[in-house]
């Protein structure tokens, strides 16, 4: 009781909960689920872009892309560490991912069909991710908030790189322009879905927005974030010279926001449920790497044990 009062006090004062602090079990579980999902998204998210490393059309782009995919691995590591402070270790989270019991962002179930998709992922997917993540830098859970600060800094760099890929394509040959437009067409709607289903209305399906806001995990509703993203992105698309695939997209003078058309939530639920273009591939790729590497991880443990035993023996001999 007293502990919980302390927790509530910290949350309402907008201070950070640290691993040593008592916290409600629901808070802990929600955070583990969310941080793990976030970590998994970084790791699974390496695949769609990793697909273009070997074929990147210039050495400069190849280097930038390799560095980016590597950054995502790094983000995954920060985030797994943050989740571990809540009492679940990385190996367990990976097992849950591979078993389909923890999720990753559904956007990564879409394929990267052309080089322009490397740009669209940076521009739209990283752009949407940042929109989701910036508020998380003020999340009530300290380790998560600190991880997000690091992640956000690099993500906005990636977002600019993605924008630049498309910028060059949109000023290139006819084929390159078409490639950029095609990528925008295919990634726009899935990017809007990244904010999750509506928090209210017909399409809302038992979300946790209210509770998570009360706990200081979430700061804005899905619909608010989605609107901010649209408002930010439409002018960028204009700058790029790309059309966004929504005939209903219009600036609303009254609200000062961009109105947009209806989202195909059936597709969202279908892909989330496993029947997306790449769900099977993403998990089987990930699992194969993990399984093929088991002997290496086991060897590292065995070697460390031997080294520790040797050090112990040496220390014993000295004592």
């Amino acid at each position, binding site marked *: 009781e007293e502990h919980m009062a302390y927790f509530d006090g910290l949350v309402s004062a907008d201070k950070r909960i640290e691993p040593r602090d008592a916290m409600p079990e629901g808070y802990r579980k929600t955070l583990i689920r969310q941080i793990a999902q976030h970590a998994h998204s970084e790791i699974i998210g390496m695949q769609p872009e990793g697909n273009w490393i*070997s074929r990147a059309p210039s050495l400069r782009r190849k280097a930038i892309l390799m560095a980016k995919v590597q950054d995502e691995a790094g983000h995954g590591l920060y985030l797994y560490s943050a989740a571990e402070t809540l009492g679940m270790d990385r190996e367990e989270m990976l097992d849950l991912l591979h078993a389909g019991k923890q999720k990753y962002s559904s956007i990564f179930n879409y394929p990267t069909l052309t080089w322009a998709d490397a740009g669209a992922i940076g521009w739209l997917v990283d752009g949407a991710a940042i929109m989701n993540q910036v508020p998380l830098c003020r999340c009530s859970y300290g380790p998560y908030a600190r991880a997000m600060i690091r992640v956000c800094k690099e993500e906005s760099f990636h977002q600019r790189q993605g924008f630049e890929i498309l910028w060059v394509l949109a000023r290139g040959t006819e084929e390159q322009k078409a490639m950029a437009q095609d990528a925008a067409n295919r990634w726009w709607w899935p990017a809007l879905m990244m904010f999750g289903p509506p928090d209210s209305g017909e399409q809302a399906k038992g979300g946790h927005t209210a509770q998570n806001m009360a706990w200081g995990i979430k700061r804005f509703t899905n619909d608010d974030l989605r609107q901010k993203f649209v408002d930010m992105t439409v002018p960028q698309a204009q700058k790029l010279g790309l059309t966004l695939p929504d005939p209903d997209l219009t600036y609303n003078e009254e609200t000062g926001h961009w109105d947009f058309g209806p989202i195909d939530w059936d597709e969202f639920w279908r892909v989330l449920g496993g029947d997306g273009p790449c769900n099977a591939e993403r998990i089987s790729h990930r699992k194969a*790497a993990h399984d093929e590497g088991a002997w290496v991880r086991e060897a590292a443990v065995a*070697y460390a044990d031997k080294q520790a035993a040797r050090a112990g023996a040496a220390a014993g001999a000295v004592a």
Partner: protein
Amino acid sequence: VPARVAYLLGLGDDALVYAQRLGEWLTNAPQIEEDMALGNVGLDLLGQARTLLTHAGEVEGAGRDEDDLAYLRDEREFRNVHLVEQPRGDFGQEMARMLWFASYQCELYTALLELPTSDETLRGVAEKALKEVAYHRDHAGQWVLRLGDGTEESHARMQAGLEAVLPYLAELFDDDEASRWAAEAGIGVLPSTLHDGAVAHVRAVVQEATLDLPEESRWRSRGGREGIHSRPMGYLLAEMQHIHRSHPGASW
């Protein structure tokens, strides 16, 4: 191709092709730390390749930049050794390849730095790269230790990795026409002079790892520096060059 350009292309192509192979590890490594580490090694090598190819293009003076050289040469014009073009094997085999290649590169860049060379760019590459390849050598060495002295399975697989790369090692130390010219001209080194130092380093690691250094190979690779490559090379280039070649003259 003039000998000086050929020499630089040999160094650059080794780095480029190995970077291409290492890039394949991203999303496929045994743990996330290794996705990062192998990506890092690949990035270092890609950086070396870019400077070396750019320099080769400048020395050649025909207006070819790094991308022209990477994307628009055919298989017969690539001058890398066979070791780096071999397909990705298991992690033990990769650590065997990396230990050997980084040991070779450590000797190479050390020797280049000792030359009173007139090629300032090459000296600059060597200076920067030596730190990088020393880290690669150390990273691979640490894994050879862990795997060699880890479990029974890892010991066997690490030993198999050392055997698998064996036929490709002699070629690293073959003196070809271009390196003979470069050594003569004082801007390069003879690969054969790098052999003993590299072997000494690898041998020490392998022994500490309770492994055997295999020394007898029924056959050996030859001719990469003359553009004679093994079967996987053509497929590697097809993948690497396809998009670039699909858009002639485009900028990226």
